[in-house]
């Protein structure tokens, strides 16, 4: 009995997916239009995509661009956010710029960027870079701002210089918040990755999706949606694993203090 109760939370995500598929199946059977294949048809099309060398190369191409742009964004956004969080001057300089760029849908910039950089990798990576940067900057900024002054003073008394305090106190202290930003950034990277390929068709997962949409191959379209969704779940789960390992010290599960003076 206890094993069943322990098993249930683990099975819950799977049950949720099955439920979604069931609703999809019923809905498509009721609507019965060509452009809305049933879940079973879509799932059946998945292996044929993954078995096709061309398609796999396309998907890997997307992932490569995403990985490069995501990493570049972290390298720029984390230090910038941390500096904004600790220096009023830096914050007041960059804040208006961010406020302007924040509401602009990054994919909408794609046509303009394509004019500068062409339809190749660079333009797509720049769009992903922009999409990822903003939440990471924002969360790094919030994390750095919340660092306790007394913690920095303690470090200064030990002889840490200002740059050392930035790297060895502000960075680790803000890490839980930074990683929250990175997690949002990762999902946004996937979204901008697909939309950038919708506008600049050349290669990639989005390319397969929108080309098959144009050609009316609806089972492939939905199969690609399933594949992209699965990539999202996979990346998020992997990142979550890494995150919880890095900030084990701040996890709420730890929150029961031992009591003794």
């Amino acid at each position: 009995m206890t094993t069943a109760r322990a098993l249930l939370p683990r099975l819950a995500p799977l049950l949720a997916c099955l439920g979604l598929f069931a609703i999809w199946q019923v809905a498509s059977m009721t609507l019965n239009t060509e452009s809305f294949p049933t879940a079973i048809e879509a799932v059946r099309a998945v292996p044929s995509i993954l078995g096709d060398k061309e398609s796999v190369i396309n998907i890997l191409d997307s992932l490569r661009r995403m990985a490069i742009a995501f990493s570049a964004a972290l390298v720029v956004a984390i230090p910038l956010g941390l500096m904004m969080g600790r220096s009023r001057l830096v914050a007041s300089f960059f804040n208006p710029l961010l406020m302007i760029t924040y509401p602009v849908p990054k994919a909408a910039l794609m046509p303009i960027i394509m004019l500068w950089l062409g339809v190749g990798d660079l333009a797509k990576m720049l769009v992903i870079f922009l999409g990822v940067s903003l939440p990471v900057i924002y969360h790094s900024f919030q994390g750095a701002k919340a660092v306790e002054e007394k913690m920095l003073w303690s470090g200064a008394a030990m002889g840490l210089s200002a740059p050392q305090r930035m790297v060895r106190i502000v960075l680790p202290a803000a890490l839980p918040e930074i990683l929250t930003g990175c997690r949002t950034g990762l999902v946004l990277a996937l979204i901008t990755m697909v939309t950038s390929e919708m506008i600049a068709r050349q290669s990639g997962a989005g390319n397969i999706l929108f080309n098959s949409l144009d050609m009316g191959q609806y089972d492939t379209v939905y199969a690609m949606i399933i594949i992209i969704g699965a990539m999202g779940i996979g990346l998020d789960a992997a990142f979550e694993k890494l995150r919880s390992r890095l900030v084990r010290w701040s996890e709420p599960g730890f929150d029961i203090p031992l009591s003794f003076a």
Partner: protein
Amino acid sequence: MVGPVTHGKTPGSKAGMKVVPSRPEVRTDPAPVRGPASAMIEIERVSQTFRTAGRQAHLALSDISLTIEDGAFVSILGPSGCGKSTLLYIVGGFVSPTEGEARVKGRTITGPGPDRGPVFQEFALFPWKTVLGNVMYGPRQQGVKSAEADAQSRRLIEMVGLKGFENFYPKELSGGMKQRVALARTLAYHPAVLLMDEPFGALDAHTRTRLQNDLLNIWERDRKTVLFVTHSVDEAVFLSDKVVVMTRAPGRIKEIVDIALPRPRRRAELLLDPRYQKYVVEIERMIDDTSEEGLHP
């Protein structure tokens, strides 16, 4: 006059004289003769003005002059908002005074340094480090070899009563335990002066008493100079050689009371000692006076 070679601290060394840097970890011979007590901290005509949110100038400290001798335990006592913590931050080098200056061992304080170790009410531990990691942080920063810092830190952790908790994270500890770690972390880099900013203010009465006792025991071993900020009269009298009573804002020194109670002090004996009771009553009366001043400026 050629006298015997004096070890350790040279009393009365003025700035400009040859100062032999005494390594804190090097112990002098047992029972070193303390010559005429030398000044460890000198605060000279310090005033501090803050700008409030309404852009008004708020005078927090007004014309404070105070000398703290080497090896003395001095408490700064006053009502909240009297600037007593600000004074400690000035000595720590975390805040620079609007007027006047503070010196440590004759040198003007321009910033924080490992000769002055703070212990804050908020603990300010590094939450991503274990107890051991926190205590080792200072020595490692000072270039002490890893193995040596490890051994020293474990001894300190044992001294503050946390043996067995070396690999715990701050989150897993109670407030009292956190403050023990904070004390060990500061003692680990051998500051000449301990700056304690209401260190037991956030703890319950029982824990507070235990930590006061333990602090005295630790302090009586090596008699570092301590500057201790508190608003508890009992605490100040129990711990200190001198109690500096401050007035309500703007903070001024109202009176300095020498606490001539014998050491080592034991709480149980002290509480029954009429001299102790007299000090407490006397100082409480001074503080009541300052509150009156606050009401009728």
